């Protein structure tokens, strides 16, 4: 058996004169789990249809186990490759076990009844997909997730070497999405089944696939491991959307967060001119940094020590930061850089952070902001709770009260409701144009 199970050669598909796929070439290794991703209209489904022989390309061909599928009989293909569609509509009340048994058809002659081996294979497939309890129910009474599992069981009874799936989870709730994905992962790892699937959900694809193919306008835009394909530049180019790409803390796979309303509107363009400098640290600034970036503000932060959670957040958000060496107090050099940044900013925001001797310079920087006539906001959980976060023997607190007297404002996070109510907060932060504050 060759290592390559599927070879797509120079496939070009047209609807009328519009090229849906243009000279697509790639190979699928035996035992791999590959996801095809791409925006609507990029040719994902067309590509899958071509591979499953549901659609004949205008040019090029598909080799399944070194045989041209357009010369193979449907029966021969069905013995090597099974296909799970996006959604199967079965309007006839076949029992689940009957539907699963239909997967044995490629092996049975017209007069041949199903034998012991066929029942055994059905039983195993239903066990794997956890559909045995459904065996005697009419398939018309099943929910979407149950039906999808039944169809996968049917596909497994074909004893395929490769399984093709077209957005297998797109009609399912999140719990059923995970259920199907974990089933596929198990089949891939334990049964050594090669899987090639179209995915709509980039995160699901990233978590489970070991190879991704990103399609863009009928061509392969990127192909490789999830972390190679799902990079900010690719997503921006192909999906025209800004996303936040982080490493998933548990799986280590790339994880995309949509940044809501990230398309540039006129109002957002105006906000982009508003520059807010955030003084944060120790994770207290993570949410506020994200929030401000989402709203479209130009954001800077400082001074943060290397290894600080907020520093990591700022980096993933592409926020310019004044950095300090790990565990060291803010140096004079960093402090000056911080002041330079504050000078350029329109407002200064102090997150709800504790103050120690290490970052006392940061609160001094806030004083500089007031000197420069910039509006200053302190975020608080309770009124005047800085005292409880002061580890400088009262120095920070004293400074804080002076600043309040000089016009610094406070934002009570509790009043904003639990967590960060986005719109309320922004309204609070910018009652009018910032310059008037």
């Amino acid at each position, binding site marked *: 058996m060759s290592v390559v199970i599927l070879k797509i050669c120079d496939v070009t598909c047209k609807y009328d004169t519009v090229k849906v796929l243009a000279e697509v070439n790639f190979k699928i290794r035996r035992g791999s789990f590959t996801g095809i991703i791409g925006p609507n209209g990029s040719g994902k489904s067309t590509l899958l249809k071509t591979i*499953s022989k549901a659609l004949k390309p205008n040019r090029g061909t598909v080799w399944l186990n070194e045989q041209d599928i357009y010369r193979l009989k*449907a029966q021969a293909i069905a013995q090597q490759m099974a296909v799970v569609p996006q959604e199967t509509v079965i309007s006839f*009340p076949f029992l689940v076990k009957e539907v699963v048994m239909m997967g044995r*058809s490629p092996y049975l002659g017209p007069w041949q009844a199903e034998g012991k081996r066929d029942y055994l294979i059905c039983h195993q497939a239903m066990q794997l997909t956890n559909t045995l309890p459904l065996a005697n129910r009419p398939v018309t009474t099943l929910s979407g997730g149950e039906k999808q599992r039944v169809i996968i069981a049917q596909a497994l009874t074909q004893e395929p070497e490769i399984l093709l799936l077209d957005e297998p989870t797109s009609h399912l709730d999140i719990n059923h999405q995970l259920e199907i994905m974990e089933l596929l992962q198990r089949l891939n790892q334990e049964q050594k089944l090669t899987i090639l699937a179209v995915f709509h959900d980039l995160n699901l694809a990233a978590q489970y696939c070991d190879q991704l193919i990103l399609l863009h306008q009928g061509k392969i835009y990127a192909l490789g491991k999830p972390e190679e394909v799902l990079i900010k530049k690719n997503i921006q180019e192909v999906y025209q959307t800004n996303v936040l790409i982080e490493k998933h803390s548990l799986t280590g796979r790339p994880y995309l967060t949509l940044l809501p309303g990230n398309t540039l509107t006129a109002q957002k363009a105006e906000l982009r001119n508003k520059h807010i400098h955030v003084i944060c640290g120790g994770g207290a600034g993570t949410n506020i940094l994200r929030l401000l970036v989402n709203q479209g503000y130009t954001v800077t932060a400082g001074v943060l020590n290397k290894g600080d959670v907020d520093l990591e957040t700022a980096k993933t958000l592409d926020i310019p930061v004044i950095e300090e060496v790990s565990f060291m107090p803010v140096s004079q050099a960093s402090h000056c850089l911080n002041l330079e940044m504050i000078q350029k900013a329109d407002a200064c925001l102090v997150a709800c952070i504790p103050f120690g001797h290490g970052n006392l310079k940061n609160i001094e920087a806030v004083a500089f902001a007031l000197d420069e006539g910039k509006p200053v906001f302190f975020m608080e959980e309770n009124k005047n709770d800085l005292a409880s976060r002061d580890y400088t023997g009262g120095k920070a607190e004293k400074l804080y009260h002076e600043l309040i007297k000089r016009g610094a404002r406070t934002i009570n996070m509790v009043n904003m409701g639990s967590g960060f109510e986005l719109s309320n907060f922004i309204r609070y932060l910018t009652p009018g144009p910032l310059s008037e504050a």
Partner: protein
Amino acid sequence: MLNQFLKWRLIFIALVFFLFLIIVVCLTIGPAPGSILNVFLILAKKILGLTFFKPEERWSSTFETIIFAVRLPRLILAALVGAALASAGVVLQGLLKNPLADPYILGISSGAALGATLAILLGVGSSLFGAYTLPAMAFIGAIVTIFIVYNISRVGQQVPMGNLLLAGIAVGAFFSALVTLVMVFSGADLHAVIFWLMGGLANRGWGHVKAILPYFLVGLIPIFLARRKLNLLLLGEEAAQHLGVEVETLKVILLGAVTLMVAASVSVSGIIGFVGLIIPHIFRLLTGPDHRILLPVSALGGAIFLVLMDTIARTAAAPLEIPVGVITALWGAPFFIYLLRKKKGTVGF
């Protein structure tokens, strides 16, 4: 599931036996009644060449002629037509995934009617086909219609079922209009045409049985070979292909087979409605949607149903003959409505 095959086999054998019994019983009914035993003996003598007792003492030779040359071919014809229409109905409902599909949905009936009308009113083809002009013309009309419908709906190498349905309805409507037009302008023997259109088996003999039997068999065999594939088609054409069915080839074969069977049936019996629509539904309610059982029981059920209905048509208002299509609807419709009410929501479409 192994029990299921046993159950299927038992149902099948029971229905075969029941069909045979019904035919024997119906042979005894009519203007010259006879006992079931005598009918058995006549069948044994005529078919198997076995002679028990002394026949001359038990029945007259006239009775023997009535049973064997008049009633038997008519009942066999009824059984064949019933089986053909019901199995064609099953196949077309599955193929088109449409509960309203019946053997005539693709315009076969209109084409056959046009052929028959031309034969009756204008005498077209009478020099060519002699005594069988009417069935021959109806058969040709039916085949030509499907040929036209098929070619209208074909897109490249494929025949989308939606196209086929619409083309069938359009061509059927066109031919029906032509039938009416021919009737209006001829002004002649309209009674014969109308009676043919309503369907019936009066005065049919062994010649008709022999004429349609080959088409019936040629049509039935591929349909029975494709029973499992018909199940797969119910999952959708793409799904069927992925399960190893050459869908386009299968569609052509099935359409051809159904056309032969229905065209042959219509040519000898006229347009008997209802059997091909309701019998498949009744048996789908009783046995489920699996074609491996649905197809044989529907064929047998259609045969039994039409044998019974034809006997009623022949005897209920004797000597007047009621068109059998009227009887099929009068009996079948209420029974179907009863089943529909009783097994709500499981009709399968």
